[in-house]
């Protein structure tokens, strides 16, 4: 290529200046694209980091450290027979046996040289349960594995306090420690000792709250969506309803909590921190989400369906309830599940209506004071005791599994049933 052609005109494509400029523009292009990729990658890396962090911490929460304790039951219980602690009088017999005292004695006999709390507070209850499940244990010498105190638990899993570390290494040399699955975590309730806590109570509270929410928000949401999309005349009232719904969908959740506090608790005098009030509050929050999803689903049913039904003599109500609603239902359900998932993870409004108390038992009814899964996570995260860190993460794992499951169900429903007209 000669100089003459290269610099013929400033706009010549093969000119040197032009080539340089194009190279620069292409570099800018690649840079821009890389920035876009970086943005997506950063978000996903953050998500991955969050999830792996929770998983790394939380999986330990499903495990517990157990210690071998030898029980010489015939000696300890002065020869109680299996028959005595089974049958209808088992409860009374076990009470008079003083299981906690027996456990204390057995531990003192075996690990007398370690004068620290070895077992968790719930250990005696575990022994009692084992005896109920299998009364014949009481007739012989047994080695039982019992959960250790939270300080030792933390020290055995990773780094704990120096004193606890020493105890643990001494016990580990005797081969007295092992790691087992923490069933208590799935079946128990809140406790002051992190090695005795469980999420069942909070989970049941969440389920009951969600049941109330679903029972209220779903019918009201669907009916409003049908009304607004199918029947509402264009007038002031309809405009007000639409503005209200769009606004409610964007109101911060804590405001709904304030509403619940002022109206349900203070004005109506409903029971504090109950599943009933929690469900009512979350229903008000979820309803707009269902209405908006429902309207989109109803809107996507083609007019020809309505016209055909009207044409063969169906009344407007029949058209909607016999034809439009069944066709729109998958879309409505998808929106409902997504709304319910959001409600399940919601914490702030529940704190406002008093769901922040320490509740050591699962609720029996809708008006009992209860806690909910996200609230339980918040409460545990506030604890100073190191043992709660892994329990909090473990509870988060349970919550995330449920949320992911619900979202997956929503996606499945959408793909499986949604008709594209």
């Amino acid at each position: 290529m000669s100089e003459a052609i290269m610099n013929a005109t400033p706009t010549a494509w093969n000119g040197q200046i032009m080539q340089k400029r194009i190279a620069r523009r292409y570099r800018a292009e690649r840079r821009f694209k890389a920035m876009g990729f970086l943005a997506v990658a950063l978000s996903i890396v953050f998500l991955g980091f969050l999830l792996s962090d929770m998983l790394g911490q939380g999986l330990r929460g499903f495990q517990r450290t157990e210690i071998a304790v030898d029980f010489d039951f015939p000696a300890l219980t002065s020869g109680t027979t299996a028959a005595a602690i089974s049958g209808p009088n088992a409860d009374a017999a076990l009470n008079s046996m003083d299981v906690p005292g027996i456990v204390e004695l057995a531990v003192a006999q075996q690990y007398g040289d370690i004068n620290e709390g070895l077992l968790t507070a719930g250990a005696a209850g575990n022994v009692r349960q084992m005896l109920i499940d299998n009364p014949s244990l009481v007739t012989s010498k047994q080695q039982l594995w019992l959960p250790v105190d939270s300080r030792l638990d933390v020290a055995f899993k990773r780094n704990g306090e120096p004193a606890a570390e020493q105890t643990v290494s001494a016990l580990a040399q005797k081969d007295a420690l092992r790691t087992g699955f923490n069933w208590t975590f799935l079946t128990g309730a809140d406790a002051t000792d992190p090695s005795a806590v469980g999420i069942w109570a909070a989970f049941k509270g969440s389920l009951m709250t969600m049941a109330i929410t679903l029972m209220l928000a779903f019918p009201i949401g669907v009916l409003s969506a049908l009304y607004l999309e199918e029947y509402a005349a264009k007038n002031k009232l309809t405009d007000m309803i639409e503005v209200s719904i769009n606004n409610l969908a964007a109101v911060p959740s804590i405001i709904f909590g304030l509403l619940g506090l002022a109206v349900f608790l203070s004005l109506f005098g409903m029971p504090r921190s109950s599943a009933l009030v929690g469900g009512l509050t979350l229903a008000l929050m979820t309803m707009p989400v269902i209405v908006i999803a429902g309207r989109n689903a109803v809107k996507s049913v083609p007019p020809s369906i309505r016209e055909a039904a009207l044409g063969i003599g169906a009344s407007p109500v029949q058209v909607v309830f016999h034809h439009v609603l069944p066709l729109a239902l998958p879309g409505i359900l998808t929106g409902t599940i997504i709304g319910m998932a959001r409600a399940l993870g919601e914490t702030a409004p529940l704190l406002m209506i008093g769901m922040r108390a320490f509740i050591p038992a699962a609720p029996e009814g809708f008006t009992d004071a209860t806690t909910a899964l996200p609230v339980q996570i918040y409460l545990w995260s506030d604890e100073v005791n190191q043992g709660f860190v892994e329990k909090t993460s473990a509870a988060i794992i349970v919550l995330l599994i449920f949320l992911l499951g619900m979202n997956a169900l929503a996606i499945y429903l959408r793909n499986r049933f949604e008709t594209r007209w």
Partner: protein
Amino acid sequence: MTGTALLFLVLGLGLIGWIAGRARAAAFVRSAKGGPRGTVNSLPYYHGWFVAICAIAPALVFMFIWQSISPSLVTNMVLSAPAAADLPQEGFARAAILSEARAIAQGFQVTAFQGESERLVPLYKGALAYYKWIGVAATLSLLFAGGAFAFTRIKPDFRARSKVERVVMFGLLVASLIAILTTLGIFASLIFESWRFFSMVSPFEFLFGTEWNPKSVVTPGADNGYGAIPLFWGTIFIGAIIAMIVAIPLGLMSAIFLTQYASATVRKWMKPILEILAGVPTVVYGYFAALTVAPAVRDFAVMLGVSNAASDNALAAGIVMGVMIIPLVSSMSDDSIAAVPSAMRDGSLAMGATKSETIKQVLLPAALPGVVGGVLLAVSRAIGETMIVVMAAGYTANLTANPFETITTVTVQIVALLTGDQDFGSPHTLAAFALGLALFMTTFLLNYVALRVVKKYREAYE
């Protein structure tokens, strides 16, 4: 008989009414066969619904009304008894005795702490039982009267369908009105409680004061430590500045990448993964921010030489909140970029502009209103966010622009003020409502403007 049992009884009787009505109408249909066609106006099950509605609706309405008026009837009956004549006249002590006696009579409480209430327990028991049976009897007689009335109306030419459909339409309307009721309820409760608050603490101090250190006993006219400026600043600093510095570039760039550059497969996988960020509960973000991000930020600050870096610093809360907002910004930008007519994009590409030049100089300027609307929505979402800041940002009011210090926000203080069993009329509780009102108004305004901007912009290209 408890309220729940009565409710189930009413519903069960309604079901029987439905079956009876339907059966009666079905009998007409059978006898009409062979006779002239079309003598039965409505399908049998509409008659069933008609009977059920006529039976249940008045009974339920009565139950609801009775539920709210019977307590005062019971109290009146107890007070009119001679044993209640020597109760203290002073309102507070009197109310305490009455409520205790009532709680014991209903079985909520076992022992009496006040001597007088013990005496009133049998009175309360009697009155409660008396009015309960009146309520049950009235409910059931209304139910049977309504059912019988409807049942006698069933005739072959009775227009059951149109009657039932009218009720259905009414039900639809009522369901829609609940949204308005909720909005009004929020408005009324916030304004009412805030008004009570401002009768104790001057609005001037609340809106312009710079010291937040709320006292539980207020003296009118004096400075009570209810200056909310530090809270407003903290909210703006964390939610509208730090979070947006994270969320706007990341959200916008990921929207651009996913819509303009990524292949269909990449988009199909990346988009749902991004959406997961929006589905993670805020309490999880809060825990992550407090446990992992905040210590890292503090160490980073110490490395930079900031000695007073707090462990509950504003930056950690802001960053995590920004990440939470990314999907919102991304999907709003995505929508508005997609709404730009493709003629504009094609024209620019045809002129020889590269893709990035087209995006930067044609698509983004055209989509700007939509993007701005999305950002406004994101800000409104961020300033109303509670759990992340409660767990990660701390409780100390601090008027500072140093992101490594601890800063509190409006939502954190609402939670803090309502912590503990406080009396509903205390200034702390009421201040929470005043803060709630400020938050509600701000987010309402932001949402309104954002939706208007987005709508106007959509119309411009349609």
